[in-house]
């Protein structure tokens, strides 16, 4: 009797603690002959079939054990025992029975001492708890089920050849995608809970014998030092892990592809993920890691090299081309040969304002188009693209607002800025164009030179998890530099492309 009252009180208390949330269930069930236990869980988070299965198993278990108990008791009981003893024995029986129940542990079932705070944690994580009030124990059934996508290819990082899988927003599935590519016990996964209110699970993994241990220490220190209430995006994590937050250049690589994650981990980098998004944060990286795609390694040797060089050229042209145009047209007309100069002059003659304004008009138009096309629904996206391109490109020239050459320059720049395989660097490059354009319109080539100088110094100052950002050019490592610009074939005893010194010196 007391049991039932206790249980009801406990259920009331639990409901109050969980603020009467409508998806929180705390009910009394019978598990075994005598004892009633409290079953509590969030109905939105559990996998009901599995839980049922577990309960059935537990019930069977308890019945068979109580059966054994009864048999043993009957066999051993010979004298008359008074009521209290019987009661106590009964109680003892039930408690031992429950203890035996509780001692069962399987994959999804663990047993712990009953702790109210921890109960809240476990239930919020999606586990089902069975509370045994008598023995002050609780059994955890870990059958959480969180909704997530299937591992489809991420839209933002497409490759022509190579695996088309992508990471998802679920810890187990992600680690599964990684572990199936590295079947090795040296792959270590560590978890940490961040955010006092949100209590998000953040996990990071690395391969033990090649990892850069100093970088690992830095990552751990920084993660442990995060003391915030709410963690709701991976961007926040990235900012905490960054060395220089104010720099426009990303110091950590974000990717959604497991093959890229694996390739980087095997070089000694560390990947950090959370359940919030399907992006993995990889560090420490160099500037040139942003220019590598799995495509390079899945194509032919010469082709891979050629495309890598093209991509690096894309970086240069994306930043400098509008600035060059402005500088040449405003200050240094004599650089162009005579025929080209004549054509340019006839074009430019009719534009009423200076080249900088012209360039700004076109660039801002392109930025608006790009920003809008991210949010366009697919159905009208194509149409707007064509209309925008033709109408804006053609009409704006006939209206005399912008010259033909400018449209070509801007189009070329836009295309080369999308060549970079990483989105953050893409936005960085597109933003960097504007200061260069201003410098070019004020000082011509001199401005571009000064701007480049400042940019180079800034890049040299950057570090990613305390590793130099511009390796392998600085510090100068000729062997690694060849690997950045050219792609060598895989046969033969060679080392894999390596950005920093890893512990092991001979690989394959």
């Amino acid at each position, binding site marked *: 009797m007391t049991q039932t009252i206790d249980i009801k009180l406990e259920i009331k208390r639990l409901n109050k603690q969980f603020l009467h949330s409508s998806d929180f269930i705390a009910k009394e069930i019978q598990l075994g002959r005598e004892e009633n236990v409290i079953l509590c869980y969030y109905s939105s988070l559990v996998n009901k079939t599995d839980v049922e299965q577990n309960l059935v198993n537990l019930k069977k278990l308890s019945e068979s054990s109580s059966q054994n108990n009864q048999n043993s008791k009957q066999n051993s009981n010979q004298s008359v025992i008074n009521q209290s003893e019987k009661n106590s024995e009964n109680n003892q029986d039930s408690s031992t029975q429950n203890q035996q129940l509780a001692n069962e542990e399987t994959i999804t079932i663990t047993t712990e001492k009953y702790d109210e705070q921890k109960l809240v944690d476990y239930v919020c994580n999606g586990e089902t708890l069975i509370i045994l009030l008598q023995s002050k124990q609780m059994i955890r059934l870990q059958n959480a089920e969180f909704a997530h996508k299937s591992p489809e290819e991420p839209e933002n990082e497409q490759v022509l050849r190579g695996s088309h899988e992508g990471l998802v927003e679920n810890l187990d599935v992600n680690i599964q995608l990684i572990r199936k590519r590295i079947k090795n016990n040296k792959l270590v996964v560590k978890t940490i809970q961040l955010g006092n209110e949100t209590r998000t699970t953040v996990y990071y993994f690395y391969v033990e014998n090649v990892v850069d241990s100093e970088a690992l220490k830095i990552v751990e220190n920084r993660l442990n030092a995060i003391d915030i209430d709410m963690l709701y995006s991976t961007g926040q994590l990235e900012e905490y892990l960054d060395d220089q937050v104010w720099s426009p250049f990303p110091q950590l690589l974000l990717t959604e592809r497991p093959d890229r994650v694996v390739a980087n981990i095997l070089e000694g980098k560390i990947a950090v993920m959370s359940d919030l998004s399907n992006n993995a944060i990889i560090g420490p990286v160099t500037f040139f890691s942003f220019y590598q795609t799995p495509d390079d390694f899945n194509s032919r040797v010469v082709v891979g090299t050629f495309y890598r060089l093209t991509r690096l050229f894309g970086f240069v042209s994306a930043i400098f081309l509008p600035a060059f145009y402005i500088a040449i047209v405003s200050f240094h007309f*004599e650089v162009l040969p*005579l025929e080209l100069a*004549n054509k340019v002059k*006839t074009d430019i003659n009719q534009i009423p304002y200076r080249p900088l304004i012209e360039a700004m008009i076109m660039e801002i138009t392109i930025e608006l188009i790009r920003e809008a096309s991210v949010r366009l629904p697919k159905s009208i996206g194509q149409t707007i693209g064509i209309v925008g391109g033709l109408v804006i490109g053609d009409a704006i020239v006939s209206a005399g607002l912008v010259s033909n050459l400018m449209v070509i320059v801007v189009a070329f720049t836009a295309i080369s800025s999308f060549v970079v395989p990483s989105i953050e660097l893409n936005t960085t490059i597109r933003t960097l164009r504007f200061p260069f354009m201003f410098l070019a319109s004020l000082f011509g080539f001199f401005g571009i030179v000064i701007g480049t100088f400042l940019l180079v110094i800034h890049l040299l100052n950057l570090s990613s998890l305390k590793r130099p950002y511009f390796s392998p050019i600085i510090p100068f490592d000729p062997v690694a530099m060849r690997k950045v610009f050219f792609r060598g074939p895989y046969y033969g005893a060679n080392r894999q492309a390596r950005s920093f010194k890893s512990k092991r010196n001979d690989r394959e």
Partner: protein
Amino acid sequence: MSLTGFEGEIGKLTAYYAYPEATTTEMKTVIITGKGVSPRDVRQDAELNVEQTMDLSVLSTILISEKTAEDDIYNYLDGYFRDSNSPITSKLAIVQGDLKPFFEVSEDKQSTAGEYYDRFITSLEENSMVIPYTLQTASTIIFENAQDLALPYLKMGEEKHPKAEGLALFSGRSFTGKILTIDEGVLLNILNDSLGFATRISYLYEDSPVTVRINKSKRKLNISEDKIEIPLKLEFILSEFPKDNLDKKNKRLELEKFLQDEIEKDMKGVIKKLQEAKCDAIGLGRHVRAFHPRWFKEDWNEHFSTLDISPKVDVEIVKTGILE
């Protein structure tokens, strides 16, 4: 501003400038005149007639009238070297008579005026009719006392077309007034070892025209105290020879001997002209100074005209085209 020209003399100089003007569809060439004391002054004056400032950064050619060139030519060119904007890869030419017709001709040409003359002179260079010079290399030679300039010489032909007349010989810094003809110019190039793509010489051989093209030429210099020998070995390709039958060896040898004699004779004529003009256009002075400094004299121009210079030509016909 792609073409300029000077005439007159320091103190009373007239200059013409031709520049392209941009209309909505095409470029038109406009000519303006300026008068003044010195080249820079003249430019100031010319600017008064134009609505934009003149920018000489696309200068392609500079024409100088022969009377002006008889002065020290560097006086006119100094301004171009001092300004960092002006290109010193432009070409120079000396013209006979008035400058104005040359400019008027270029008014209705499709390309800009300077380009027209630039290409004109470049084609002469490629045919080895003039020695290739740009403003910079010409000025190097002006300052060098061991070699003298020989610039292209243009005159106005009958149908109001500029025509290349030959090479104007300079001694030191001024024009001597003496000219080599175009044929002699070709020979001068052979002597100077500065051949272009296609060098052709024509003669009349026993009433039959023969034209040869030079395949290779080798020049050596044998220098002694007062005598310089220039052995030349020339390889010819036959361009025109209606008389044919060169498969017979002796016929070929005859032809070769004829060419050899003719060319030697003509070259001797060229050298005589050079010595009369005191113009060492071949650069013999440099070789003497480098390898036999004892025999080099400071006033090389004078000394040059007293030397005995004899070319010795050795000719061989190596190819005859697709006909035999």
